[in-house]
């Protein structure tokens, strides 16, 4: 089954991104496909290349990057929400790409299930 995931919040302030990541990982482990993860609202901050959490904490951004690298998961950051918050091509961690909100609606149409994680 194909899942689409919407992440509404940035890393660390909220558990949303962690929960979305755990869900995505469990879905892949069970043989499902993640059609796309779309980052919107402050969720765009999950794509920053400049995050350096303390070494005894999980690295939320790296978790997503590894998922993308290992399983070809499409990580899409909303261009409009990103511009508002200073997330542009130059600030993007590898594995993420910037595109329009249409990619979220398309995920809703193409995925069998769409799930949101937010505040």
């Amino acid at each position, binding site marked *: 089954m194909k899942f689409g995931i*919407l992440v509404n919040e940035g890393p660390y302030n909220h558990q949303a991104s962690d929960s979305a990541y755990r869900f995505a990982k469990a879905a892949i482990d069970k043989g499902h*496909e993640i059609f796309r993860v779309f980052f919107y*609202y402050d969720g765009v901050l999950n794509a920053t290349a400049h995050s350096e959490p303390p070494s005894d904490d999980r690295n939320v951004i790296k978790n997503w990057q590894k998922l993308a690298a290992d399983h070809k998961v499409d990580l899409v950051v909303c261009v409009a929400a990103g511009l508002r918050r200073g997330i542009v091509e130059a600030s993007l961690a590898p594995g993420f790409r910037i595109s329009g909100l249409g990619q979220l*609606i398309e995920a809703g*149409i*193409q995925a*069998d299930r*769409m799930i*949101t994680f*937010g505040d």
Partner: protein
Amino acid sequence: MEDDFEAGTVKKFMFVNRKPPYGTVYALEVLEMVLISAAFDQDVHIAFLDDGIYQIKKGQDTKDLGMKNFSPTYRALEGYDIEKLFVERECLEERGLSEDDLLVPVEVISRAEMGKLMAEMDVVLTA
């Protein structure tokens, strides 16, 4: 299951608004999402419940805040063929509001009807 999708797929989408405007950015960015959805020819529904009702309260004036008053955009949705706007009656009453306080034509339905309507949706997006 994986091959169900065809170019002409029309799904029932619902954007659920439970948060008021200005205090957080959610209302504005949901509205941006709604506008984009119009380009995909889907069956779009917008639900206003709980404090989401305040998004469409008449008389919003943000001049003193220096923020954009995006409430007129709700009236423009009709031009995008987005006309299925639903408000939950119980939530209006709890807030001492009536349909006359709203800046856009909506269908006022009961909580029970809203629950049934939500159950018909394929995709529910919330913020």
